[in-house]
């Protein structure tokens, strides 16, 4: 009975396949290695938000009436939030679409690698690049634009969870949106348009108090608005709370929305992720 011997070899229960968490770490290491070996990609990923911060914070530097801050200060947390979303949502959305087009994903699918390990690897990559991005923006913000580092542990803690939750939510959404473009060629436009719109209505380029309420209401459905708001709460003085729609930083709601997007993003990824392009069926 040959069948039984074949089965026995393949389905021997004593040996388990490596777990998703462990392989996720391995994937993360390999992703980070690949990322940093592409010099031009590294340059542009990190330079983009810094250039924008420099432009906006230098052009708009007047005092904000009644808030006790300058417009430049307002742009530091805003660009940090946008930077987090660009290293996660935008980079992943585009790079995964390219990987799919180049059949890297199909190859992975042909191995016993669990899909979750692939997603985990991307999140590790984004945590590292997002951390560096934030550090760079913070360095620029504190030296050029009068932003102070958080003074107490509570604020550092807030920064920590906003960073992890915001980045994870955006990374998962980036992974999910990568399945939308039909090919790598259209990936950039498909990913950048919603990101750009969100930046305009979430208070990145234009302060929330200057945006029509209905737009802010729409932006409140997505993570970016809450990341901006939370980071303003971390880096700006209490006097500037008056600029918020609610007149509060609303940390509880920030945490809730970002956590909800982490869960929703994961479900979206698991349900809609494609390992092949549409023309490959």
């Amino acid at each position, binding site marked *: *009975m*040959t*069948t039984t011997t*074949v*089965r026995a*070899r*393949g*389905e021997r229960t004593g*040996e*388990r*396949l*490596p777990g998703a968490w462990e*392989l996720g770490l*391995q994937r993360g290491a*390999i992703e980070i*290695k*690949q990322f940093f*070996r*592409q010099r031009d990609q590294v340059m542009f990923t990190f330079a983009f938000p810094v250039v924008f911060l420099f432009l906006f914070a230098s052009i708009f530097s007047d005092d904000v009436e009644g808030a006790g801050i300058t417009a430049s200060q307002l742009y530091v947390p805003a660009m940090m939030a946008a930077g987090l979303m660009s290293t996660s949502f935008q980079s992943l959305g585009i790079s995964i679409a390219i990987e799919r087009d*180049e*059949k*890297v994903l*199909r*190859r992975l*699918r*042909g*191995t*016993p*690698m*669990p899909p979750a390990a692939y997603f985990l690897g991307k999140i590790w990559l984004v945590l590292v690049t997002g951390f560096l991005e934030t550090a760079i923006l913070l360095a620029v913000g504190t030296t050029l634009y009068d932003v102070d580092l958080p003074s107490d542990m509570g604020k550092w803690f807030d920064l920590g969870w906003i960073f992890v939750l915001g980045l994870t939510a955006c990374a998962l959404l980036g992974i999910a949106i990568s399945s939308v473009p039909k090919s790598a060629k259209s990936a950039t436009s498909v990913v950048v348009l919603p990101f750009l719109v969100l930046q305009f209505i979430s208070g990145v380029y234009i302060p929330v108090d200057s945006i029509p309420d209905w737009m802010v209401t729409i932006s409140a459905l997505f993570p970016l608005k809450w990341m901006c708001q939370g980071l303003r709460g971390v880096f700006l003085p209490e006097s500037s709370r008056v600029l918020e729609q609610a007149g509060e930083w609303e940390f509880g709601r920030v945490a809730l929305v970002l956590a909800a997007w982490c869960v929703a993003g994961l479900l979206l990824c698991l349900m809609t992720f494609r390992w*092949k392009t549409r023309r490959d*069926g």
Partner: protein
Amino acid sequence: MVVPERSLRRDASDMTAHAKDLAVDVRGLRKQYGDVTAVDGIDLGIRQGEVFGLLGPNGAGKTTTVEILQGNRSRDAGEVSVLGVDPETATRAWRSRVGIVWQDESAPAELTVRETVRHFSRYYRRPRDPEEVIGLVGLQEKAGSRIKALSGGQRRRLDVALGVIGGPELLLLDEPTTGFDPAARRQFWELIRKLADEGTTILLTTHYLEEAEALAHRLAVVAHGHVVAEGEPAALRDRHGSEATVEWTEPDGTPRSEHTKTPTRTVAELTHRFDGEIPGLRVSRPTLEDVYLRLTGQENAR
């Protein structure tokens, strides 16, 4: 009308015994893309430990068939069993037993050969030794090079390395030597023979006749989504190319030729007629290539 060897064999009473020996068992496989029927009722039976060649011109349905066996493409109809499992319900455990080498390469450009092979080895329960596999495909000198710096043939060899790193029971190779130079192709054949000697069941698609003849224990010729012939290479040639060609020159200098199933008789008759040496005598059997071109309806291409 060509009767596939296997359908005759299947009629025998030992059919159930056969089914259990099969690493790949495909019956009545069909796949359509819109109006185009890519696979139109293919039957295949690949035995454990066998090297099986799937031969056919471009567009014959080879790649679609292999992709269905990989679990990477859905089918419209038919029964498929690969290592006892329907690939559509593939689990991680099943994927770890099947090695795949695709037609187009897709390894991450920024990593080195060694990093890539090592990394892929971690996906498996009991992988082969990465260094040994790199040596097996002849890339030891390139082990430290980035993949983007490899030549096309070297990348294909890396693909093969990634296909066998998990120590698969079944290896599916889709046109693995396309773009190889003759030396690399010979080297690749050695690799396949080595893996076959270790007991790996191998399915390879190719449109190189010599490759199929050199490697495959059995082969199936596919055309227009059908299996038009199946069997051992020599048997195929005998069965589908039994007519020999006898050529000679008449005393007046006219070249003559005759297609016949009984070339010896023809030669005997000629010997009688010429009473001694027959001028310009040549008796030739069709090559596998002649058989192949006839089977796939490309005879006139010659």
